[in-house]
């Protein structure tokens, strides 16, 4: 039991470290085993954590609203006024009937006319105020959304690569899209409904208390069960809405992934299976949503029943009191009329509460992302690096993806003096890209430090670090937009000439100019308009334009044909003069231009020296590699 001798076999691996036992909550749908096991399955858990979640999202809400206190107060004032003028309507009608009509019958039409004009005036004022309120509160809501969207975007960019790996893009996208939509709904409908309903209820309650306190107390007593029902509703619909949020995230993840991998989907006839999976994800969302709607139905039904019941009680008790002579008939009549009005906005309030619960669930998720601290954080007091020489050092560095997994890079030291070109070779999975990513600070080492010009990367401002170190990643990701846009991402302020010069240097210019729109050609989603090699050239030109002190190339030429690759190599020889470079390549032709070769195996640097020397040392790994490579060329 205690002997993990066969830790390498799949079966032994199946019992993972206890800390990361995958929670069944996210993966328990039947037929879900295709999804496989991963450590990140634990979503924000239910139960005890719920309070914390709520507090977190309330704090976020507070942060968003606080700077807008002024407009919020103004909006409140507007509704108060609007409601006042709205409520004036019935009074004026009553006046017209009670005062105006008798006067008119007496042959004096002026009072009636005044009431009529007053009525119309009140209506106009109320409508104009309503307009002002809608636009103001709409602006408020949109401002809040705008800020939240921007925050989420910026924060997502700040978060470390390891966060993105665990969280997955689909979930992040659903935070930005469907969760934001929930909030939008609350802001669009909720504010209006909430203010108006509450105000009119408070107003009427005050009026009733003034008219007849005992009867009003009877009526207000009915609020107790109402509050209880509302509490029931909140807790039920909260859990339903939470489920809608996570199941919608699953829908979105599946959709995005399918659309991005549609070639493979079609070529491998994956459509049916995907339909099924979508059916499941979408069905889960549907069930959760239906649940929320059903809970809402019960809630609305219950509040209405309570309101109506209350009406009956007041009618019965009031009628009895009238019969007893304890109450005026007129008061009871007015009371009943107002009581009905009191309960009218309750429906709307229920809807507001409903949007609120939905939005709260969404806000929980959003605030969850925002509360995520970047693991690879920018220092609070960065060391400035004006112009980097490009002196790179790894000092006692150790690194592994996740604590429970064996380290990918066991402890090592490495020094790359400024201006040196280092080639990194080794078997796939040896850890070459990982080393490069440490240098580009995608991750921080779990022990030791990586320094640039003697400064720990963790102490450098992001800006300086990125100006000094650029990396062409193994997967050449292009953004939609034109070719020029994509190259210019390396240095946004570059002129057109500089863009062309960069493309020329890596040998992309001829093919770009052969395209109908040249540099303005749209590359489509992920660069689908271009061939794989062309994409690599563009990605390369992009890093080239950035002209960093340290350039990291991770198999930047793997999809190129030999002549193109040689052109790139020639370009490199000039470009790399005076720069530090780390080049990862499997094609040793690229490696031969390096000053120094590092051979990696199982995360360790096993050979280190100038290429010619290593080739010469028979029995060495690089020697063997080189032999094999030469053989492969024939």
């Amino acid at each position: 039991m205690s002997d993990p001798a066969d830790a390498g076999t799949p079966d032994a691996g199946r019992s993972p470290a206890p800390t990361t036992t995958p929670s069944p909550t996210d993966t328990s749908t039947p037929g879900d085993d295709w999804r496989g096991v991963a450590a990140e399955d634990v979503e924000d858990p239910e139960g005890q954590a719920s309070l914390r979640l709520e507090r977190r999202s309330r704090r976020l809400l507070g942060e968003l609203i606080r700077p807008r206190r002024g407009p919020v107060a103004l909006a409140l004032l507007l509704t108060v006024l609007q409601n006042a003028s709205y409520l004036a309507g019935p009074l004026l009608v009553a006046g017209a009937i009670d005062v105006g009509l008798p006067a008119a019958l007496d042959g004096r039409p002026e009072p009636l006319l005044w009431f009529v004009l007053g009525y119309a005036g009140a209506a106009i004022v109320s409508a104009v105020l309503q307009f002002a309120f809608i636009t103001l509160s709409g602006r408020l809501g949109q401002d809040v959304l705008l800020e939240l969207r921007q925050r989420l975007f910026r924060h997502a960019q700040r978060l470390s690569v390891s966060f993105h790996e665990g969280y997955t893009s689909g979930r992040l996208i659903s935070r930005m899209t469907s969760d934001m939509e929930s909030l939008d709904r609350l802001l669009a409908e909720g504010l209006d409904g909430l203010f108006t309903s509450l105000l009119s209820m408070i107003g009427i309650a005050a009026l009733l208390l003034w008219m007849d306190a005992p009867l009003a107390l009877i009526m207000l007593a009915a609020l107790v069960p109402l509050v209880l029902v509302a509490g029931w509703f909140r807790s039920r619909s909260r859990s339903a809405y939470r489920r809608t949020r996570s199941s919608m995230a699953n829908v979105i993840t599946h959709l995005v992934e399918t659309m991005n991998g549609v070639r493979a989907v079609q070529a491998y006839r994956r459509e049916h299976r995907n339909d099924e999976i979508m059916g499941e994800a979408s069905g889960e969302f549907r069930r959760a949503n239906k649940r929320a709607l059903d809970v809402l139905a019960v809630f609305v039904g219950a509040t209405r029943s309570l309101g109506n019941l209350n009406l009956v009680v007041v009618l019965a008790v009031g009628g009895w009191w009238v019969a007893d002579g304890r109450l005026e008939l007129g008061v009871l009549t007015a009371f009943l009329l107002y009581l009905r009005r009191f309960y009218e906005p309750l429906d709307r309030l229920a809807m507001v509460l409903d949007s609120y619960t939905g939005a709260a669930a969404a806000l929980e998720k959003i605030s969850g992302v925002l509360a995520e601290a970047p693991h690879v954080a920018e220092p609070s007091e960065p060391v400035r690096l004006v112009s980097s020489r490009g002196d790179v050092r790894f000092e006692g560095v150790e690194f592994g993806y996740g604590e429970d997994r064996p380290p990918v890079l066991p402890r090592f030291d490495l020094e790359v003096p400024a201006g040196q070109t280092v080639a990194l070779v080794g078997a796939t999975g040896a850890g070459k890209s990982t080393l490069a990513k440490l240098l580009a600070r995608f991750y921080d080492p779990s022990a030791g430090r990586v320094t640039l010009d003697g400064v720990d990367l963790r102490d450098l401002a992001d800006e300086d670090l990125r100006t000094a170190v650029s990396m062409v990643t193994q997967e050449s990701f292009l953004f939609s937009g034109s070719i020029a846009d994509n190259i210019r991402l390396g240095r946004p302020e570059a002129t057109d000439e500089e863009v062309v010069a960069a493309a020329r240097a890596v040998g992309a210019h001829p093919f770009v100019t052969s395209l109908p729109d040249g540099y303005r050609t749209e590359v489509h989603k992920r660069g689908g308009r271009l061939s794989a090699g062309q994409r690599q050239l563009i990605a390369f030109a992009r890093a080239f334009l950035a002209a960093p002190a340290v350039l990291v190339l991770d198999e930047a030429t793997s999809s190129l044909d030999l002549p193109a690759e040689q052109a790139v190599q020639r370009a490199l020889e000039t470009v790399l003069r005076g720069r530090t470079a780390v080049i990862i390549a499997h094609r040793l032709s690229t490696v031969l231009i390096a000053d120094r070769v590092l051979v990696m195996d199982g995360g360790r640097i096993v050979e280190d020296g100038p290429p010619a020397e290593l080739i010469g040392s028979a029995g060495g790994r690089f020697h063997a590699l080189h032999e094999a490579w030469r053989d492969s060329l024939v």
Partner: protein
Amino acid sequence: MDTDTDTAAPANTADPTRPDLPGGHPSELSSPPPRGETAARRSATRALLRLSPYAGTVRTPLVTATLLALLAVLAGLAMPLAIGAAIDGPVAERDLAGLGWMAGLVLLLGLVESGLHLARRRIMSGPTTAVEARMRQDLFHHLQRLPVAFHDRWPSGQLLSRAVNDLSTIRRFFAFTSVFLVVNTITILVGLAILFSISPVLALIMVVIGIPTALITLRVEFRYNSESRLAQDQQGDLATTFEESVLGVRVLKSLGRGRHLARHFAAQARQLRGTELRKIHLLGWVWMWIMVLPEIGVAAMIAYGGYGVATGTMTVGSLVAAITILAYLRFPIDSMGWLFSEANETATASDRYWEVRDSLREIEDPAEPADLPRPVRGELRFEDVRFRYSGSGGAEERAGDDEVLRGVDLTLVPGETMALVGATGCGKTTLTALASRLADPTGGRITLDGVDLRDLRLADLRTAVTTAFEDPVLFSASVRENVRLGAPDATEEEVVAALRVAHALDFVSALPWGLDTRIGEQGLSLSGGQRQRLALARAVVARPAVLVLDDPLSALDVHTEAEVEAALRRVLSGVTSLLVAHRPSTVRLADRVALLEGGRVTAVGTHHELLASEPGYRALLATPDDEDGRDGVAEPAGNEVSSR
């Protein structure tokens, strides 16, 4: 107000807030997804009518719900009448027993009212969420079968916003908006009828007031429609930008361009905010008129009624009755503003939804599919195959010089391995995509065992031909599921054997949960070579008759490459395979090599034959050592179009 109907111009074209950053990401400049300009001119009603096939599935509950809502409204209206009767009768007469009865009646009405509302919501919750799920499923189903060309052009953010936001708008339309549009209209009409029975002139006043209300509403509807279309499109753009920023986070980090893109995103988000504000403004405007005009009508009625009472043509009682009725109509009338906006958003959502659903699938099963001979021999023949990417660019497109493939003739004998060699961007991947009909040739034909691919069922074809793509796309699923993608029935042994061929078994077993490990989204938590080997395993596990491998070893080191080659050689014997290759080492796997140049296969032969006879081939595949002193040949490739 300030703008005219031309605001319906395509999204973002004239946008002052666009950052003047040259490197901005004008995902909006790529025009493919149709923008609202045409949609706005279509009528909202027509757009809503397009939902009828789905509305049909919820017809019964919809009608029931409408009836229930109507009844509930009636019960609601009856309650004050009963209360009034109770006050005038038993209470005024101090008749406690009678009061009890009346209270019971009110209670009954109240319970009926709330019960009906509850029932209505309950009845609708199931069917409407089902319609939403169904529409999403149909959309997804359709999307998966649309050609790759469609997906290259449509940013997934746009598809996403349709599948999520638009569908939830449509669900709400079925659940509430449509019901209350009907119920409120009926209530208002009934109210008017009662009003008419009391006094035709009073009713007439309301009708006259209704005319400007309707006109204003219609006028704004048009603009609102185009704004809401714009907003929905902008939401899609925003989703797209965000998606790209997340998927491309490594690039953005490595170049330090997160802030740059954040500015672009902020500009887009501000645009969306602007559109939303214009919408809110329009809505507020309509709402204002919808609120104020009926009130003016009421004022006019009181004035007229008062005059009537004074002159004796009307009784006080009927005036009071008329006013009471109007008080009841107040809520239905007011809520029309909100219903109006919802209905318009639904119309837009429906337009956007059907835009995608109306896109042609293009590549589909033939009407009368032919059968492949069994067993499939695997003779793949390209006959004068031409291919042009549609809409690939600018004005020169029609010049005819933009064909990627210009008459490819190539025959793969059953069981042979044919390497396809050509410069970067010469059309190798394009050619391989044709073999499994991810696209159809624009000229000529491709046959498998003598049958035109277009006469085959897609499922048959794609079972017979599998492809390992140059970008190894892995899905967030277990390793096993990823490998079994094309062969869901593959046994554990077959999966393991395929992994062994791809030399992937070692690292897979070292994963924390072995074959059950979920590999991250797009396999990014594996190394490049590991991903490529899984994609290779996926292609071989299905034991296809024709195997297409697009540069399958590019990310492997020399040793691993040699081992995979040795294993592949065993697998490839007996299987027809087309192997795109950039390196001599990969070419060695092949029996014959075809050289693709200028959109044609210009030579076929063994590696050594071609090296000897074809200068173009030599330029592509000769070793650098042979290359010394021949620098002129090494002009980078990819310019095949211009060079010809």
